């Protein structure tokens, strides 16, 4: 657990970057600090490992005030990831990752072995181990940054906009992999971002800060969407928050999933026409994994081939959220959204109307503005 108690930071030039901050990041959870540029997020984060000293107030690490600790020893207990990774240019990737364990007195050999494991764990090939940072792309460096912070197996992690220096596609991948990793390792993490979508996607709880370094609201992502504390938070969370809040509503069997007739590649035009509902028929592979939609008219006498497939639809997991379900329906050319089980095998399809009906039946969503 990391706890801020009345923490204030005023810089020598008089700027009050953080003002009376009270906040608790529970053990094993991912807490996100979000807010507009200059609202004091980085300052707050860096006060935890005392790269910046608070002007007043106390920060506790598992109920011990950090002010009494040796700063270097304190930092060795906390993993820290920054925007551009900040890798050591003069060390190989594996030695970068092994830095903390070696600093903590582990043998070089052991530290390297562990580092190699971590490099693979964050999704990099082991062959990268002997490279130097300049030989990696920005996204790859960012992964190394995460691996390096994890290497000493710290109980706490601080991350300052760790995914902001990469393009949206890579960012999405890094976020997904990071969520998977966190579900395995369960660290106490505080992450800073100014991207509200990232905050809502990753956070167990989200702290919204306003300029002047004050906490505006601290809540779970869905609560933030459904009941923002004030005008500022509502504005910051965004206009389509009603739609986005669906991302936090589990389907949990609330939507009726319809049967869908399917064909496989190689089927004749007649068979496809017979199985189709309306103009479209769903195509699956041998193990009932959806491949795409096809229009029997276009097969024109021959047999169903890959080039006939329309790939625009996105499959939703039955265990997923209302938002994914609605998205599946709206993105499908047949307007029937494909629903799959945890192995990716077809369960059936849903229509947008079905999903909306289920949403309207959902009681707490009525409170959403």
């Amino acid at each position, binding site marked *: 657990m990391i706890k801020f108690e009345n923490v204030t930071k005023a810089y020598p030039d008089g700027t009050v970057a953080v003002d009376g901050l009270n906040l608790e990041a529970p053990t094993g959870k991912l807490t996100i600090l979000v807010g507009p540029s200059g609202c004091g997020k980085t300052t707050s984060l860096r006060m935890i*490992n005392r*790269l910046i000293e608070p002007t007043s107030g106390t920060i506790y690490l598992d109920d011990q005030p950090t002010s009494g600790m040796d700063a270097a020893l304190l*930092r*060795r207990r906390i993993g820290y990831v*920054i925007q551009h990774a*900040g*890798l*050591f240019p003069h060390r190989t990737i594996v030695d970068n990752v092994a*830095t903390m364990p070696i600093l903590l007195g582990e043998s070089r050999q052991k530290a390297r072995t562990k580092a190699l494991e971590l490099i693979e764990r964050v999704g990099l090939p082991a062959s990268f181990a002997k490279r130097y940072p*300049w030989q990696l792309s920005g996204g790859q460096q960012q992964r190394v940054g995460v691996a390096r912070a994890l290497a000493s197996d710290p109980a706490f992690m601080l991350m300052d906009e760790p995914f902001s220096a990469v393009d949206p596609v890579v960012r999405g991948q890094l976020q997904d992999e990071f969520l998977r990793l966190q579900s395995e390792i369960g660290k106490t993490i505080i992450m800073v971002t100014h991207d509200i979508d990232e905050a809502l996607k990753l956070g167990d709880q989200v702290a919204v800060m306003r300029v002047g370094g004050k906490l505006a609201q601290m809540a779970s992502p869905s609560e933030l969407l459904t009941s923002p504390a004030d005008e500022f938070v509502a504005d910051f969370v965004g206009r389509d928050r009603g739609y986005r809040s669906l991302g936090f509503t589990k389907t949990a069997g609330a939507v009726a999933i319809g049967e869908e007739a399917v064909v496989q590649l190689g089927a004749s035009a007649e068979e496809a026409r017979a199985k189709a509902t309306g103009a479209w028929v769903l195509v699956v592979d041998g193990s009932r994994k959806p491949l795409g939609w096809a229009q029997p008219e276009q097969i024109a006498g021959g047999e169903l081939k890959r080039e006939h497939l329309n790939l625009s639809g996105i499959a939703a997991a039955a265990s997923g959220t209302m938002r994914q379900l609605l998205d599946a329906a709206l993105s499908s050319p047949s307007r029937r959204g494909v629903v799959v089980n945890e192995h990716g095998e077809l369960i059936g399809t849903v229509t947008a109307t079905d999903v909306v009906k289920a949403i309207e039946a959902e009681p707490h969503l009525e409170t959403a503005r």
Partner: protein
Amino acid sequence: MNIEWLGRQFDTIVFLLGWHVLLTVIPLILGLLIALPLGWWAHRSRRIYPLLVGVAGLLYTVPSLALFVLLPLVLGTKILDPLNIVAALTIYTVALLVRVVADALESVPEDTVQAAKAMGYRSWQSLLKVELPVGVPVISAGLRVAAVSNVSLVSVAALLGIPQLGSLFTQGFQLRFFTPIIAGILLCVILAMILDGLIILLNRWLTPWTPKVVAS
């Protein structure tokens, strides 16, 4: 060129070359050792930087022959003592390298320094294991300049009668004889090139991590 003369003087020339190497290399090493902490100090303090760099600039302005003559006053040595030369060249080397070391440390990316601090390096650990190693290319560039100019500066001491390769120049002048002059110039240039090459190799050995670009 009178090859025969060179053959007869071989022992003398080797002796002069040996002195030249000593008078060049000792100040280079001493100068680097002194410049490292001073440069670090200048890097650490915004107020010290202009002071140290300013004083270094002034020292650099003093012509070498003048410095050779003035140092005995300060050191209490005899005018012919090679120690004066070592001291003078050490001063020049420090004057050149203080700024180089400060700028080298300044050239280390802020992210890197912050990362080291955040991982719990104490400031001396960060300096020794991160900042200095990353600053090596800038420092060796400065060291190359210092080494090459030291070779040339040492030969000025011949005018005061301190033996090294410069003695070949004065000897040639007195005898109106080209051979020793040309031999001296060639040996100076070769020595400078060898020192330069050694520093390049040392730099390469210390920085396997830099992108291999075609350097000028």
